[in-house]
């Protein structure tokens, strides 16, 4: 198992490097010129060239990528201009290893940008995760137990309705009605625990995580219902009944264990993907998490930040995959890794 995990991590790291290289290549293959974008009005070709230099896009792609990889291991300095470092060292930003680059468009190292944004996305993801697991799974179990009856139809029906709305719409509606019109909650603003304590953190997270959770709750009600029903139809449940086990024990021990195992893995992967940012929800609620940072980076041709977020997102997903696989081996005795 240990060797398996080590191997998976090793493959994951290689994948990250491949992805970063692909991002570099795609970025430079795009028709838009990021240097033109940062150059003001009345821009001459010479000025565009200066901007390109300021952005660090003046060297060949592979050289840039090489510097990026070097930075990950030994750190870098920005801008990479020995002359400037000599004459005006205070203008040089240092980016210690592991350095994911420096974004001239944000005037900050990518590492610091991600360090600021990640806690927001992670808070949001975990909060939403908590909500959707609690409500989605309990809803799904209720629906399965009352299959075909009112509770089932109501739950599945409303899940379908919620599911069919875009996140943007749900988020905006919650924000406008709950926070602005009815003022049931304060205007959602992300407040780190270090600034406002747990209370402010939670109240700020409520609406955005609810928005995010609603979509997942809808999905998980249907998922859980399906898995529970499937599990209830399994032969081993019939065996359990034939043994004379009480209904409680059949549901609690035999049905749930089998039904929740696949949900645990799906949930792990969903959470992993969500940790890297929920673009729409973060945009609607003005949460400066990784999702919003990603949009900003992509729309402003901010390569270093884009690469950084791609890597973080991929790392979350790869890690989630590894954890889920390991978890699976723990909860399902049939699964063994070698």
């Amino acid at each position: 198992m240990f060797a398996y995990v080590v191997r998976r991590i090793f493959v994951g790291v290689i994948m990250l490097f491949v992805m970063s290289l692909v991002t570099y290549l795609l970025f430079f293959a795009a028709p838009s010129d990021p240097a033109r974008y940062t150059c003001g009005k009345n821009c001459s070709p010479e000025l565009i060239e200066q901007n390109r230099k300021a952005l660090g896009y003046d060297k060949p792609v592979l050289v840039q990528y090489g510097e990026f990889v070097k930075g990950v291991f030994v750190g870098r300095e920005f801008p990479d201009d020995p002359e400037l470092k000599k004459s005006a060292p205070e203008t040089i930003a240092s980016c210690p290893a592991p350095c994911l680059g420096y974004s001239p468009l944000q005037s900050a190292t990518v590492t610091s940008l991600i360090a600021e944004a990640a806690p927001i996305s992670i808070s949001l993801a975990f909060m939403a995760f908590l909500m959707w697991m609690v409500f989605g799974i309990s809803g799904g179990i209720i629906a399965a137990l009352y299959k075909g009856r009112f509770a089932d139809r109501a739950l599945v029906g409303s899940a379908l309705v919620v599911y069919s709305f875009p996140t943007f719409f749900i988020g905006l509606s919650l924000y406008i009605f709950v926070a602005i019109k009815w003022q049931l909650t304060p205007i959602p603003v992300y407040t780190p625990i270090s600034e406002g304590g747990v209370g402010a953190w939670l109240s700020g997270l409520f609406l955005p995580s609810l928005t995010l959770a609603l979509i997942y709750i809808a999905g998980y009600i249907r998922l859980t219902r399906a898995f529970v029903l499937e599990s209830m139809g399994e032969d081993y449940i019939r065996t359990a009944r034939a043994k004379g086990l009480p209904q409680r024990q059949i549901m609690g021990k035999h049905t749930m264990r089998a039904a929740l195992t696949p949900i645990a893995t799906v949930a792990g992967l969903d959470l992993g993907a969500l940790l890297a940012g929920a673009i729409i929800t973060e945009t609607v609620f003005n949460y400066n998490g990784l999702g919003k940072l990603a949009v900003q980076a992509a729309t402003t041709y901010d390569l270093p930040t884009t690469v950084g977020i791609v890597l973080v997102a991929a790392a979350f997903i790869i890690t989630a995959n590894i954890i889920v696989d390991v978890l699976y081996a723990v909860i399902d005795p049939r699964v063994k890794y070698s």
Partner: protein
Amino acid sequence: MSRWASADPASSGALLSVRDLKVTFPTEDGLVKAVDGLTFDLRAGETIGIVGESGSGKSVTSQAIMGLHRGTRAMVEGQIVFDGRDLIKIVDEDLRRMRGRDIAMIFQDPLSALHPYYTVGNQIVEAYRVHNDVTKAAARTHVIEMLDRVGIPNPQKRVDQYPHEFSGGMRQRAMIAMALVNSPRLIIADEPTTALDVTVQAQILNLLVDLQKEFGSAIIIITHDLGVVAELADSIMVMFAGKAVEGGEAEEIFYEAMHPYTWGLLQSMPRIDSEKKERLVPIAGNPPSLINPPPGCAFHPRCAFRDDARLGCSSVIPEFDISTEHPARCLIPEGERRAISQAKTKTRTA
């Protein structure tokens, strides 16, 4: 045995008396009469074989006896009297207490019938403790003894293994251990060897015979394989389209079969001990619909001996006369059938 079953279950003296059992499933296309008026008795320590093809209602019968249709949309009617109590009428909790303790079940596919996430020991201990107020340790000791008894080598180690770590035969042994752990008076074995290889099947059937002697349980064995019941059963009931078409002692069924369907079954089966390379005699056609069964005798569309003009096979529903020793649900006069049967038996054993 003088008659197939008495009219009154109370006077039958049997461990299990099933009377006019009907199991109906509502579906979108209509009511499926999976079991339609089944009657039989089973005495303590004896074995009855229920034989039939897919859709004949044999498995539904076994589940109805266990009360496994409770809580579903299936409708169960008739009487299932076990040890003087009607299992259809008793409350859920009483039935639950009897399941596993008085009546145990062995299923066809031991891999899917065992929970994949719990050890074999865990599952058998659970079956024991739910009916016996003992400590886990005591239960475990008992379970290890049971595993040893059903021929699982190294039971101390095996008890902590998961079903997937067992071979198919070992899994079925474990299922048998689970069924026997409470020394039930009735074991229902639903196709217990169908998923197994023939050499393993032989082992398991041997084991069942041995254990029945030791525990004195009555057995209902449900199978499509006439060879299996030939080895085990005292009496046999042949089912077709939810109904019993013939019943009697094992030898009567094999050597004096009185129903065209039974003849068909016996003849369509290639025999390992028959060197003759003659054409098989299949039963023509396909199994009938259970929602709209053919009028009259449900078997008549496939019957090689039907005589609609004389006997009204397509309009008259033949009776299953439980007052006789060897009832057969057929309109052909008994004498004629006896003659056909003797001719057929001759060809089989020649």
